[in-house]
């Protein structure tokens, strides 16, 4: 039982980062009805930029802010350079193109920063906290990750539910034609969606980097988990992405704890397959929100 609680607690911060990456996928899906497989590549690239900033200034907050800005800019660049020209003729082509972007970003990162894994020093201690004479599987850094994630999720929720920009973005996602007829500049909303998704993914990248190392391919597995969480959550739902992102983190932690961490991606893919068989619209999705 103690093991169970330890494994569970140890999964939360990982889950939070998966939730952020799933959120990024959902934001792109909501604006352009496609899955951006380059999302983790963009996050990896901006995390390298953040690493460079941190190494030269020693300032983690500055590195996070730079990653956030770079992430939103990179999101817009990918949208204009690749997605818009391709998507006009063919959505499937655009999705394949995102794989191209992923590979290009990985190759580019390898050329700029080299292929060797590098460590990302966390701003606060990442060792388990000692409370009540026992070492818990939760560090100060885990708590920071959870706090940043919570702030971001609450911020996004307020943006979407309380502001005019959020209403315009939701309307553009649900029904672009009615949105245009209501005076919403739908194209701008799509670009804004890509920018916010890029920023969200970038923050996820910076947060997860200290848990292991960063290399051009180190976030690939994160794509598997984030995609699983986003799809099970319904691809359309921000709440779904967060819930199942954290859920996926907990499952991974339990599977890794009781068996071997190498089994986690397999379990994730099995869950994904079961979900597609049993509830193809996702748990929080509404009917017809996607066709896979």
């Amino acid at each position, binding site marked *: 039982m103690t093991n169970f609680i330890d494994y569970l607690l140890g999964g939360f911060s990982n889950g939070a980062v998966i939730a952020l990456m799933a959120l990024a996928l959902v934001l792109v899906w909501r604006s352009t009805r496609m899955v951006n497989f380059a999302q983790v590549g963009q996050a990896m690239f901006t995390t390298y930029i953040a690493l460079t900033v941190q190494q030269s200034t020693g300032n983690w907050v500055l590195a996070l802010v730079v990653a956030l800005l770079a992430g939103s800019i990179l999101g817009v660049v990918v949208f204009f350079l690749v997605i818009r020209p391709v998507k006009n003729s063919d959505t499937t082509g655009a999705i394949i193109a995102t794989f191209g972007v992923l590979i290009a970003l990985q190759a580019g990162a390898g050329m700029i920063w080299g292929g060797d894994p590098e460590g990302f020093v966390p701003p606060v201690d990442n060792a388990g906290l000692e409370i009540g004479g026992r070492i818990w599987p939760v560090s100060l850094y885990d708590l920071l990750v959870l706090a940043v994630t919570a702030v971001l999720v609450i911020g996004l929720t307020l943006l979407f539910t309380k502001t*005019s920009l959020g*209403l*315009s973005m*939701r*309307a553009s996602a*649900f*029904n672009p*034609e*009615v*949105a*245009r*007829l*209501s*005076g*919403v*500049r*739908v194209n701008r909303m799509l670009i804004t969606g890509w920018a916010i998704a890029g920023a969200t993914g970038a923050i996820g990248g910076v947060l997860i980097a200290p848990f292991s190392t960063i290399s051009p391919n180190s976030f690939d597995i994160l794509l598997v988990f984030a995609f699983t969480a986003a799809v099970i959550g319904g691809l359309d739902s921000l709440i779904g992405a967060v819930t199942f992102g954290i859920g996926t983190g907990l499952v991974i932690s339990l599977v890794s704890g009781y068996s071997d961490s190498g089994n986690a991606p397999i379990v994730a893919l099995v869950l994904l397959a079961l979900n597609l068989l049993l509830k193809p619209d996702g748990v929080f999705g*509404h009917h017809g929100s996607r066709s896979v």
Partner: protein
Amino acid sequence: MLETVDLCVSYGAVKALNGMNLVVPRGEVTAVIGANGAGKSTLMRTLAGLVSPQSGQVLFDGASIAGTKPEDIVRNGLALVPEGRSTIPELTVEENLRLGGLWRSKSDRGASRDIVFDLFPILNERSTMRADTLSGGERQQLAIGRALMSDPKCLLLDEPSLGLAPLIVTQILELVSRLARETNLAVLLVEQNAVTALRVATTGVVLNLGEVVKSGPAAEISSDEELRHAYLGY
């Protein structure tokens, strides 16, 4: 107010509108009637900027608007309520309404919302509910209300009777017609349901295969038996 000159629209080889001339004055309802495929929806989508004309002009307030983006046309005061109760079901009634005039100042929006709630009080009662919980008639009111939130000088209604009980349609259209008279709003209504449309309209225009067959006072058109048999099927 709104005028088309020799308007031609084609979908590939198919001519949907063939040299259409139309004038929509302020303060009254102008009804364009005709059977399925007469070009009614094409006319509306062209006026709203969703479809580009092949030739001819669309004049709004004296300026040519053909080729302008839909989001700019509505900001200029020409609002379309498209066919099929075009609300966004996932949003609440209040959000659907707010969407209609997001670019306007808060006080302007408030004034428009008062007008809408005055016209359709049910929307005020249902304000926090999701649009998909509304009945068909309520959703049509919401769709018209959303268009009115842009403070239009001209309102385009595409087939509002579709799928609604005749009594409800008449009620809604009479409210719109009163609004047109009282606020000097130009209303262009296209309808397959000629009887209802001509009842609230001042002027009637009969459209067939993309061409105007006849136009004149609504009463005159509805009493022209030959016209009824030939083009309106009743």
